[in-house]
């Protein structure tokens, strides 16, 4: 299956992926309306220190510690995509502690949130990939 991969050599640290992610998952059709005066809480984040930067999001691991450790069964693998049932999640954060990449984070409503490869929104393909100006985030089979 196709997954998101990053090439840190090409990452400019522009954070556009974070904004595109936040917009894609906002439910709004207008980017200005979606993001103006909003403190975004994207599902992909730029890790940055000195000259090194790269985007970090869920890798949809083949043997996912978050799914194995989920105390409620809210995290499952659906067609290779690690999916969260936000209605079932109680916000215990075991998955946040378990994820080796820091790719799961709290959301405003108490449940956790994570990248689901834009399958639950209207984008079709991951918005972070489509909007990356330098090809530093790719969506491909490896």
């Amino acid at each position, binding site marked *: 299956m196709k997954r998101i991969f990053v090439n840190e050599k090409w990452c400019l640290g522009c954070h556009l992926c974070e904004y595109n992610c936040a917009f894609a998952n906002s439910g709004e059709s207008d980017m200005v309306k979606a993001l103006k005066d909003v403190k975004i809480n994207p599902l992909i984040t730029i890790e940055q220190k000195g000259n090194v930067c790269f985007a970090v999001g869920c890798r949809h691991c083949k043997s996912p*510690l978050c799914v*194995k*450790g989920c*105390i*409620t*069964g809210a995290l499952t693998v659906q067609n290779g995509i690690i999916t969260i049932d936000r*209605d*079932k999640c*109680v916000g*215990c954060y*075991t998955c946040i502690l*378990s994820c080796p990449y820091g790719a799961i984070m709290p959301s405003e409503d108490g449940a956790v949130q994570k990248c689901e490869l834009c399958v639950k929104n209207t984008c079709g393909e991951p918005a972070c990939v489509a909007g990356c100006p330098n090809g530093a985030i790719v969506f491909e089979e490896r």
Partner: protein
Amino acid sequence: MRYVIIGNSAAAVGCIEGIRKLDKTGSITVISSENYHTYSRPLISYLLCGKTTEQKMKYRPDSFYEDNKVALLAGKKAVRIDKGKKQVVLEDGMEIPYDKLLIATGSDPFIPPIEGIDTVEKKFTFMSLNDAKELEKAISPKSRVLIMGAGLIGLKCAEGIARKVKSITVVDMADRILSSILDLDAASIVQWHIESKGIKFILSDSVVSFSPGKAVLKSGRSVSFDILVVAVGVRPNTKLAIDAGIEVARGIVTDEHCRTSADDIYAAGDCSESIDVVTGERRVLALLPNAYMQGEGSP
């Protein structure tokens, strides 16, 4: 291959999913003393405070057993493992033969032998869905609840019922709450938060005797209560293993592949002990993710 699993919680589910990755056709039988679809035990406090429902706290979907071709014997108690005949005997006399057996019997609450504890009428533990349901039936907005034990179970219980009762007092012999996971500084921060929700603590003290509606503490003070919750700790459920002559220390002794001392018998989850990779020492590390992964790794 005939797989038999005693238990129906995280380790059992991990084992079923682990088996089905490798073997799509072998028969799997799950023996569960509780008459429920697999559910998430840690969620019983969330159920009481209304953050989840009995349907939502199911650990796997309704079609789980069917999807994985599992025969679930719910409400059946395994009473004996016959290593020689390679079978598990149930309370009703039924014999279940196995090629590979997983013991995933979890743990049971420990009730300390305190003077008068048997005379306490409204006495509860807080481990299972039935425990939660019984406690919920017993409490009312007038209830004064005494919880013995300021560990995770006692405090989750307090959280679950905090808004539904008149008062909660938690007694623990340690000098701080959550003493197995927090140091004094951290514990005092969490304690302050919990106290701000109206829950009272009596620390470095313990109950020495019960008389009707009253607990007398070691310090001499006494606490009046209507409902008692005992949450001083749990004991691995090792009886089946001990009776079968399987090596048991604190928990059922397992190696790095979750094998017990008996051929073709594995153990996983709260009933077992294994080597903690951090300390290199054997211990029971009763955490849900561990239980799942031990169960998953055992086949």
